[in-house]
Every structure is written in structure tokens, then in C-alpha cells.
């Protein structure tokens, strides 16, 4: 059960690193936030702070409003020499140019984690393919499938995590806990100051993540809060009221299902191929209805057998769904939740069994440097047709609503134009109202579900919020 962290009871550890002389002293709280994240990463690498203590410091960092704008958690980043060296190089560059602005320090951190392309060997690709198909497969099971030694699989796994940022996350049907997941797409009105709007959005207690790049006029904010139609109605009205003054365009999607696909069979001898379907314009190749191979998780609504404890476990499994029950339990304890290992095992089992969570494998650095998000507003039959294309894409995540579908796809750079043009051209189909793109360098992280839950009220086993709290307009005007 959750307990509050009592200030002073568990003092924050002093974090020092062998590289402290490279870390400047700044007054701006936003700049300090990123510097502390950098210091923590370097301390983890140098071994001057334990992972448990580092997690405690991250809990403290989350209080900085900058965390909502750009969730930055060094404890979930891969700790290795390659990234450490890039961070050190970037700190030296900051020192050379005497730059201590929040933007430049943030760039120093985020650019360091942009994955360099590393060739993947055949064995690692086979292991990754197994994990992509079945993210929770044990090392022994993979070894049996591939007819290789378990030790070889373990070594592969280490390399995959180190060089290809492989991690194991899960999608979750949060409606099982009475929680709504919502995405609000927007285009800013001419002359509106994005920095002020971003700060307002970050202050909105239900914001999970914000994406608005410098090169695109379209952005989105993803939100999560307990409630139903009444709460959604308040949010919807509030967002609509901002059209004309803050936004030129708003489009609200309430999650009804979601999924993740990857197609590593498109990678042969280090080269990605592209499906003929994508290469041709949609007019030339009809878009068929979805096949049964999609890994879709539907939102089934509130299920009373799932309690806040299960929600807490879900939140941890989204960070690492292969984490041991001990690790999950320990991590939850740091966040103020007393959940023992047995409870974690039981909860995880039920969450998977009853399809409240769906594990999936995330990877990077194998030539998929093109990241797109498409907001597709379409009729339901077109949602199905568009989803049927997902197994043709190297890596895809999708969020389905009654309004359409939101796609995040990762594609190789050399085929970026083809994928972009294919999905954009769906807009010309009858039944598809619009296909709006956002191009990004990386898919950004988000605040954890437990971070958001701190802002919710609780009665018995239900979370709730005052409906008036969902007035987004009051934060942006």
C-alpha cells in the first residue's frame, strides 16, 4: 500500500562524480534540472551512487516542472562507456563555449543518447527477433528455439541492451483501473509563444508527455486521469475553448485500444527492405482490412479485481517488463509503495493473463533513424485498414480512438520519403479526413503513471479528480 515519503526521514544522498569539475554551477532551475540528471548519470557510471539512491534522487528531480516538459530519468538510460564519453564530450563543448542555458544543457544530455548506428550481427538479430515476437521469453527458451547455448543468448542480450538500447516495455489498458488515456493534438495560433504554452501544459497535473518539435507546427500533449465521460467532457470543452486564441486546431483522442508491431524480417544483411505495398501509392495497391496477427490491446473498461496495487505494478512494468519481482518491489518501495515480491508476482501474472498489459520490445541503433508520428482522423473501417499496414513497417506503435488512429513509426532513413508519402497520401481516400505528420529525432519519454497518480484523489479503491481540475484552458491562458 502506498505510503508517503516523509521529508528528512530518508535524506537524499549526496551525488558526486569524478567529473564534477566539468559540471558548471547555474542558478536557472531548468538548467539545474538537466545538470543534475547529467551528474546522476555520471555518478551511476562511476559507481559513486547506487541505483537505489539514484532512484531516490530522480524522485526528487521529478518535482522540477522541467520534468513534465521533458521526462529525463538517468536511472532508465543505458549506463555504458559509450554514452558516458558522449556526455563528457558535450560537457567539454559547453565549457568551451561557456554556455549554461537550459536549452544547451538539455541538448548536451539528449544528443548524447541519440543512438549511433551499430551493425547488428546475425546471432543478435535472431535473438532480437525472438524477443520482438515474445518479449518475456526466457533465455533458455530462446536458446532452445535458436538451438544455441543459453550463455550465447545471455551475451547477445547484454550486447543488445548496450549497443541497441533494447528494453522491454508494455502497453497497458488503464481503463481497467478507471483511468483514461487521452491525446490532444494541436496547432498553435500565429504569434502564440510556445514556451509559455509548454510551461502551462507542464503545469497541468494530468500531462504525461508533450511533443512539439521546432520543425513542425503540429504537436500533441498526452494526458492521463481517472474518470469517465463527465471528466472527458470538461476537458473537451476546455480544449475547444482555446481554439482561436491559443490554438488553430485541436483534436482529442480517447484511447480505445493500442498495439505495437515490429518487422525485423525486413532487415537482411544490414539493409532494410521496403514492402512493395508501401512503395506503391495507395491508389495502386488497395489497403486491406486488418489481419489477425496484430498485437492489439483493447480497452475493456473498469475491472474491479484490479486495485491500485496492480496499477503501481503496471507502472513499473512499463519501464521494464522483464524486471525481476524483487526489483519491481524495491523500486516501488522507493516511490512509497509497500508491495512485496509475492504481490508483484501475483499481480504481474494476473495483468498478463487478463490482458491488462501487453509486453513489447523496444530497440534502436539498427538503421531506423526516421521517426514519424501521424495523427489519422478517419472512419472506423479505415482505422482497421491502416492498422493492417503496421506489420509492413519496421517498428510501429499505435493508439486507437473513435476519432481515428495515431501511429508512431520508425523507418530507415533511405525509405523515409516513401513511408511519409504513403501515409500522407491516405488523406486522399474517402473515409480518411486527415493525416497530419510530426517528424522527430527520437520518441520522447513520458512521466510514469505513478507520478501522475500523486495528483489524484483516492477513496477506497478508486481514484478520482474534481472535474473542474480538468480545465486545461486555465493553465494555458
Amino acid at each position: 500500500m502506498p505510503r508517503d515519503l516523509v521529508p528528512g526521514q530518508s535524506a537524499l544522498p549526496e551525488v558526486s562524480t569524478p567529473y564534477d569539475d566539468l559540471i558548471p554551477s547555474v542558478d536557472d532551475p531548468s538548467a539545474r534540472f538537466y545538470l543534475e540528471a547529467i551528474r546522476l548519470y555520471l555518478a551511476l557510471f562511476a559507481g559513486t551512487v547506487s541505483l537505489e539512491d539514484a532512484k531516490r534522487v530522480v524522485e526528487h528531480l521529478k518535482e522540477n516542472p522541467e520534468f513534465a516538459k521533458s521526462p529525463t530519468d538517468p536511472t532508465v538510460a543505458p549506463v555504458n562507456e559509450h554514452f558516458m564519453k558522449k556526455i563528457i564530450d558535450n560537457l567539454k563543448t559547453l565549457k568551451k563555449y561557456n554556455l549554461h542555458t537550459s536549452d544547451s544543457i538539455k541538448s548536451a544530455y539528449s544528443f548524447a543518447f541519440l543512438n549511433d548506428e551499430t551493425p547488428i550481427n546475425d546471432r543478435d538479430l535472431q535473438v532480437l527477433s525472438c524477443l520482438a515476437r515474445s518479449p518475456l521469453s526466457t533465455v533458455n527458451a530462446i536458446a532452445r528455439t535458436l538451438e544455441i547455448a543459453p550463455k550465447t543468448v545471455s551475451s547477445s542480450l547484454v550486447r543488445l541492451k548496450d549497443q541497441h538500447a533494447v528494453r522491454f516495455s508494455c502497453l497497458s489498458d488503464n481503463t481497467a483501473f478507471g483511468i483514461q488515456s487521452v491525446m490532444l493534438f494541436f496547432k498553435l495560433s500565429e504569434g502564440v509563444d510556445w514556451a509559455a504554452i509548454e510551461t502551462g501544459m507542464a503545469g497541468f497535473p494530468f500531462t504525461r508527455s508533450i511533443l512539439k518539435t521546432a520543425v513542425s507546427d503540429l504537436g500533441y500533449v498526452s494526458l492521463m486521469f481517472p474518470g469517465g465521460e463527465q471528466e472527458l467532457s470538461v476537458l473537451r470543452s476546455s480544449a475547444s475553448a482555446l481554439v482561436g486564441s491559443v490554438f488553430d486546431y485541436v483534436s482529442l483522442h480517447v484511447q480505445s485500444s493500442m498495439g505495437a508491431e515490429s518487422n525485423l524480417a525486413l532487415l537482411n544483411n544490414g539493409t532494410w527492405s521496403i514492402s512493395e505495398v508501401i512503395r506503391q501509392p495507395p491508389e495502386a495497391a488497395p489497403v486491406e482490412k486488418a489481419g489477425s496477427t496484430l498485437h492489439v490491446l483493447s480497452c475493456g473498461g473498469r475491472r474491479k479485481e484490479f486495485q491500485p496495487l496492480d496499477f503501481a505494478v503496471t507502472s513499473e512494468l512499463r519501464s521494464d517488463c522483464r524486471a525481476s519481482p524483487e526489483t519491481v518491489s524495491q523500486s516501488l518501495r522507493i516511490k512509497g509503495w509497500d508491495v512485496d515480491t509475492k504481490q508483484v508476482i501475483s499481480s504481474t501474472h494476473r495483468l498478463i493473463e487478463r490482458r491488462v498489459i501487453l509486453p513489447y520490445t523496444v530497440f534502436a541503433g539498427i538503421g531506423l533513424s526516421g521517426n514519424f508520428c501521424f495523427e489519422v482522423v478517419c472512419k472506423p473501417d479505415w482505422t482497421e485498414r491502416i492498422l493492417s499496414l503496421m506489420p509492413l513497417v519496421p517498428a510501429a506503435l499505435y493508439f486507437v480512438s473513435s476519432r481515428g488512429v495515431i501511429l508512431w513509426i520508425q523507418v530507415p532513413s533511405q525509405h523515409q520519403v516513401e513511408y511519409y508519402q504513403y501515409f500522407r497520401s491516405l488523406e486522399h481516400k474517402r473515409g480518411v479526413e486527415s493525416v497530419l505528420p510530426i517528424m522527430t529525432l527520437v520518441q520522447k519519454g513520458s512521466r510514469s503513471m505513478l507520478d501522475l497518480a500523486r495528483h489524484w484523489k483516492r477513496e477506497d479503491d478508486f481514484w478520482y479528480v474534481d472535474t473542474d481540475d480538468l480545465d486545461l484552458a486555465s493553465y494555458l491562458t
Partner: protein
Amino acid sequence: MDLNKLEPADLRLLRRLLMNPGMRQSDLAKDLQVSRPMVNQTWHKLVRTNHLRVKSSVDYGKVGMSLVFGWAQASETSDQLKAFCAWLDSNTQVTLASRSVMTSGTNAAVYFEAVTSLGRDPPFPARFIDWSNDRTSDFGLRYDVAAEVSNHLNMGLFDGRQWTLDEGFRFEVSTGAMKDYADVLPAMNSLKLSKPSACTVENLAVLSVLEDSYHASVREVTEYMSRLSLRCPPERTLRRRLDSIRSKMTLPYVFLSDIGLIHKAVLCVDSSSQESPLSRMLHIQAGTLPKARVVSGRSLSVLSIELPSLWNWLALSSSLIQITKSSAKTLTFIAQESATRKTLEKALLRMTGKQSLA
């Protein structure tokens, strides 16, 4: 063909040539301490495999012309944009029309350059400007008269097979830091364009030859003039004129193709202030990119880049837009391959009343 690999000897010659694109083969041989035939052999191999050429940026003003550049954008289905693109394709003054295949937003866009004769500025039919001013239309047209042009090729980033490009943190930080000192830093390979003044058709012919070949000989110019039925001055006079025009009206740059730069991207910057250091910053920073061209006027600047991958484009664009965001509006897109037309030649044909070269 996207990449014809280069050998160390090719790179050595190219890197030396890029330091001073006006160098002749004999000077290169001396500098590199190799024989003249060896330079000649490497040079001709590069001409064959990578279309090596020393071209010229041209001061159009000195021959009574202006370089007008700009961009138009509208929704992908806009009939007005289609009409504008059709006009660009048919107009003989237009030297370049690069259409978007992928933009950062939902609009389609086209970047263009046109060389107009003295007193004929802007070169568009009024209807395009009317459409752009019409608030009910989504067609937008921005244009400017070029004041400075620069062409860049950075072979220091190429090992003959792969490009190593820091489009990340260091590029963003150095560009941001450099912006404040742009007015005192030198812009290499940059040519300031004069205001248009009258000139003779013979000088225009000489410049037309030099535009395509900086080292053009008297014989090449004589042949060209005779194909236009122009009276050729005596050889000594022509030589003097050729040398004078070469040194006063042109700036050489190295042209090379098939070097693995497969994507062409365009970044359009609309600065509200004429005093903005942004155009200067682009002229300077373009030299750190693999292959780039910058055209800037009083309020508009355009950076055209050729890059090995689109990832580079997004990273670079993000960094540049991040830096320019407070003082300018920007538009960036991936463009189709576009052929550059020889406009000075078109102008010469108009002036001499000919349909084509003999």
C-alpha cells in the same frame, strides 16, 4: 549512381583544390609535390566518375541582372501552387525549381531561383502576388533579390566512402555561439552581388561561359560567341577581358557529384529584420556541411543542403530552427532533384534574337 568511391589520391587533390578552387593543375602539382601528368590523370578520372568541374558563382549585377529567389507554399492539392510550378517550369528566366517531397508540415512547397534582366523585377505575373495577398487563399509566395551567394563543398567530412557529419550537439552549440559573432567572422566562398548596371552582350557571353567553367579558355569563349553570331574581339583583347571578368565578376567553386549525398534539403528563413545576423550565420556555417548553397537577400535566406541521410536533415533543421526561432519564420523540406538551367545563355539568346545556339 549515388556514390563513386574516392581514393586517397583523389581526396588529396580535391581537398587542396577546395582550399583555392581557382588553382590550375600546374599549381596543384607544385603544391602537392607530384607530377603534372599525375594531377591531370586524377583530375580526368574525377571528371569521368564524379563530374568534377570548377564552376563560378556569378555577380549578376555586373551584367545588368538580378538573382531573384524565394519560395511558394500551399496545400498539396492547391491548384494555385500547381499553376505556379507550371509557370516556373515554362519560364526561361527560372534557373532552379526544387519541389518538396516531404515537408515539416502539411503544405507542399517549391523553392526557386530566377535571373531577371535589369528593371524587370519581380519576374512574376501579378496574379501570383495577388493570390499570395489573398487571405482566403492558402497560397503563400515570398521572394527577395539576392545580395549574397555562397557555394560550399566540405570534403574534410568524407573519407572516400562515408561522410562523418556532426549534425548533433556540437553543430547546434557552435552555430548558436557563432551567431553573436557572425558580423566579424569571415564567410568563405561567398560572393556579394552588385546592383544591376548596364553591360555589353559580349561581356554577358564571356560570363555565361565562365559560369559553367571557371577556367574556360579564350578558344572556348570564341567558339561560344561565334555560335551566338557575336563579333569576337581580337584574341589579346578577349584574353584581357576574360581575365578581368573572371577576377571581378566571378568566384570559383568546386562542383562534384555521385559522392553519396542522396538527399537534398531546403531551409527557408524569413527574417523580419534586415539587420538580422541569420543570413551571415548561414553563409558561414554552411561551410561545415557536406555540400551547401546559400542565397540571401534583405530579409530572406535559403540554405540548400545535400546530405547523406534524412536523419541529418531533421537534426540540422531542428538545430538551425532552434537558433533562428526567436527572430525568423522558417520552412524546411526535402526536395526533389532539380536541374539548374543556364539562364545567362537564355538571356543571351533573347538579346541576340536566336532560338538556340548554332
